[in-house]
C-alpha cells in the first residue's frame, strides 16, 4: 500500500508527520527547503484572516513543470505544493519570531490532486496529519501595533475541496501562470525556474504578454480595475466561475468574465437568503453600500460572509479596494 511514487528518497504515500517527508532540512520550523524544494510567490494572495504564508513546490528528481501553448501549467506526478500558514508574533517586527499553525500539502499522482492537512504542535517541532481539521486560539500584534486574537480554524479535507474544485475535480489554485508571472521588477520566478531547468515554458513565452494578475496590495503599478478584478479572482473566483461550486448563483468573479451582469452588476440574487442584507443587486455601480458583494465581504456571520470558508475577520484593505472600485464604476 505504500508503493506510491517513490522518487529521490521521497515516498509520496501520506505520512503521519510533516517531518517524515523531508521537505525541509535542519530545524523544521525554519522551513529551510531541501533539494528539489523551492519557494514561490503569487501575485494576488487569498486573504486568510491575516495569516502569512510560506509556499514551496517539491518536484521529483529529473522532473519539471510543463506549460502548454494555452499557458496552462501542469505538474509531474509526485509533485507537492506545500503551503505553511503562520503569524508573526509582532507583524511590525518579524525578527521577533512566528508561530506556524498548519501546513497544507497538495500531492499530485496519477489520479489527480489530493489534499493533506498537518497541524503544528505548540513546541513548533513538527506537524501531525489531521483529516477532520482543528480549531485553536491565536494572538498576534498586527502591523499597526494592535493586539489581535482569533479562534483560528484549520480546514478538514472536504473543506479543502470546497475551494479547490473545478467541475467537482480537485485542482490547485495558486499554481497558475497568471498568479506566478510576476512583474519584471520583482525578477520573474518563471524565468528563473526556466534557467534552473524546473519548468518548460513554450517557445516564445513572453512574460509581458502572458496573463498576469495584478498585485492588488500595490497601489502602483496597475489601475483600480486590474487590482479589484485580481482581488476578486483570487478571493472569490475559485468558486464563482462557471465550473466552480458557486456556479449555482450565476455570479462569476473570475478574471476572464467580461459580462457585467454575470459579475453582479444589476443582478438580483438567486439563493442568497439573508446574505442579501436587504440589498437588491450584487453590484450597484457607484453605490458600494447598496451592493450585496460588499455586504457579504464585510460580514463575519458564517451564514452571510463570503468567502464561506477560510475567512472570519473582514479584510479591511480588500474592502477599501472593492469599495473604491464600485464607487468609481459607471
Amino acid at each position: 500500500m505504500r508503493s506510491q511514487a517513490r522518487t529521490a528518497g521521497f515516498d509520496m504515500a501520506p505520512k503521519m508527520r510533516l517531518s517524515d517527508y523531508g521537505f525541509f532540512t535542519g530545524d523544521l520550523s525554519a522551513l529551510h527547503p531541501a533539494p528539489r524544494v523551492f519557494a514561490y510567490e503569487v501575485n494576488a494572495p487569498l486573504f486568510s484572516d491575516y495569516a502569512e504564508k510560506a509556499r514551496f513546490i517539491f518536484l521529483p528528481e529529473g522532473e519539471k513543470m510543463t506549460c502548454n501553448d494555452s499557458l496552462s501549467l501542469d505538474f509531474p506526478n509526485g509533485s507537492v505544493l506545500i503551503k505553511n500558514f503562520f503569524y508573526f508574533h509582532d507583524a511590525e517586527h518579524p525578527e521577533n519570531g512566528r508561530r506556524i499553525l498548519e501546513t497544507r500539502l497538495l500531492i499530485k499522482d496519477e489520479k489527480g490532486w489530493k489534499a493533506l492537512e498537518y497541524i503544528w504542535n505548540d513546541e513548533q517541532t513538527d506537524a501531525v496529519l489531521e483529516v477532520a481539521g482543528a480549531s485553536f486560539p491565536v494572538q498576534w500584534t498586527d502591523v499597526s501595533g494592535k493586539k489581535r486574537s482569533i479562534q483560528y480554524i484549520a480546514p478538514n479535507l472536504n473543506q479543502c475541496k470546497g475551494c479547490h474544485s473545478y467541475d467537482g475535480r480537485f485542482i490547485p489554485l495558486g499554481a497558475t501562470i497568471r498568479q506566478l508571472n510576476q512583474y519584471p521588477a520583482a525578477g520573474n520566478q518563471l524565468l528563473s525556474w526556466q534557467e534552473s531547468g524546473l519548468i518548460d515554458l513554450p517557445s516564445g513565452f513572453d512574460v509581458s504578454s502572458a496573463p498576469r494578475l495584478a498585485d492588488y496590495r500595490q497601489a502602483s503599478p496597475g489601475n483600480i480595475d486590474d487590482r479589484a478584478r485580481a482581488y476578486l479572482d483570487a478571493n472569490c473566483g475559485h468558486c464563482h466561475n462557471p465550473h466552480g461550486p458557486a456556479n449555482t448563483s450565476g455570479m462569476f468573479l473570475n478574471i476572464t468574465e467580461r459580462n457585467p451582469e454575470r459579475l453582479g452588476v444589476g443582478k438580483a440574487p438567486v439563493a442568497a437568503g439573508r446574505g442579501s442584507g436587504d440589498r437588491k443587486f450584487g453590484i450597484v455601480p457607484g453605490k458600494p453600500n447598496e451592493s450585496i458583494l460588499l455586504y457579504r465581504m464585510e460580514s463575519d456571520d458564517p451564514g452571510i460572509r463570503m468567502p464561506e470558508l477560510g475567512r472570519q475577520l473582514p479584510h479591511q484593505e480588500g474592502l477599501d479596494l472593492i469599495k473604491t472600485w464600485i464607487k468609481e464604476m459607471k
Partner: protein
Amino acid sequence: MLKQLLLLPVWLLATAILTAQPDIEKQIQTQLILAEDGEVIEFPAGKIDLSNTLWLDAKKNITLRGAGQDKTVLSFKNQTQGAEGIKVTNASGIVLEHFTIEDSKGDLIKTQSVKGLIFRDITARWSGKPKKTNGSYALYPVQCQNVRMERCTAIGASDAGLYIGQSDSVWVTRCYAKNNVAGIEIENTTNAWVYENYALYNTGGILVFDLPDLPKKRGGHVKVWKNKIIENNYRNFAPKGNIVGKVPPGTGVMILATNDVEVFDNYIMDNKTASTAIVSYYITENPVKDEHYNPYPSGIYIHDNVYSEGKRMPTWKNKLGFLFWLKFGRNVPHILYDGIQDPENPVRDGVVLPEYRICIRNNENGTFANLKADKKFKGISRDLKPYDCTHDSMESNR
C-alpha cells in the same frame, strides 16, 4: 477523495482517529471523510451540538441515518463555521433519513451535484418565531438528479422550506411545509412531481419558478397534484433582494415564467390574496438581461382543483395585494393570470398554438381574472372562455 484516502495505511488512519479530539462532532466529520462506498453512518439519539458544517464529498452509496426525528436532533444553534448544517457534494446514491436538524446559520441541508438522493423522515426547522435572520432553505438540493423527498418537514425558512433548484427528475411527496416564506419551491428544474404534500401557513404555498442568469436556463414539466395548500397567509419575512420577498402573503400556488406545468386535484383553501397565480418574470419589476431566458409562462394547465367559497380580503402589505384590493375589494378571484404574453409565441390564425396555451378548466369555485398587467391593469377580464382548453399530452404523461 475517498480513494486517495484509502491509500492511507490502516495503522495511520487508526492513529489519526485516536489522536483526534474525542468530541462527537469531530468523530462524525472524520467518519464522513473516511466513509467507504456503501457505508451507513448513524447519528446517535440525543441532542448533538455542532459548530461546523458536516460535509460529505465525492462518495457513493452512503446513508446518514438518525435514530428518529424525535430522537436525534442535530443543533447548529452555536454554529461558528460553514454556511450550512449538512452539505453533500459530488456524490451519488445518498440517503439522508430519520433525524431532526435545526438552527443553522445558512441552509440546513444543501446538496450539490448529487445523482440519486433521498431525503426521508427529516424535520428541518428554525426554532422560535419565523424571522428574516433564519437561513434561506431547509432542504436544498441544487444541480442534482433523481431526488426524492418524502415525509419531510420544513419550518421557518426565510426563503423556501423545501427547495429544489436547477435539478432534474424530482419527487416531493407527503411532506409538510409550514411557516416558511415559500413552502415548496421548484426552481429552474425539469420533471418534478409534487404530490400529496401539505403547505400550510407559509407566505406562499407552492412556487414553480424559472429565474434568469442561472446555468440551468429552463425548468418545466412540473406536476403539482393532490396537495393541501391551505392558509398560506403568513407575513413575508424574506430579506429584501430575494425573489420570494416579492410573493404576496396569501399566495397558494404561483407559477412564474415556467413552461409545461400541470396543477390539478389540489385543495387550495383560504389563501387570501392569490390562490393560484400565473405570472411572467416582469411582474417582479426586476430587469431581464439574460438573452437566453424566457420570462413568460406557457403550456399551463390548471384543472380540477378545489378552492374555498366566500370572500377574502387580500393583503395590503404587498403592492400586488393592495392592487387586487383596489380592483376587486374583498372578492379577489382565485385564479389570476397577469396576461403578459410572449410576443414571440407561435400563433396560427391569431390564436396561440395549443402547446403554449394557458388552460384553466373544471375548478370548484375557480373564479378567474386576466389582470392585463401589460396594459397597466386596465380592462381586466373575468372571461374564462379563452382558457377553456386541455393539454392532453400532459394528462397522458403522468
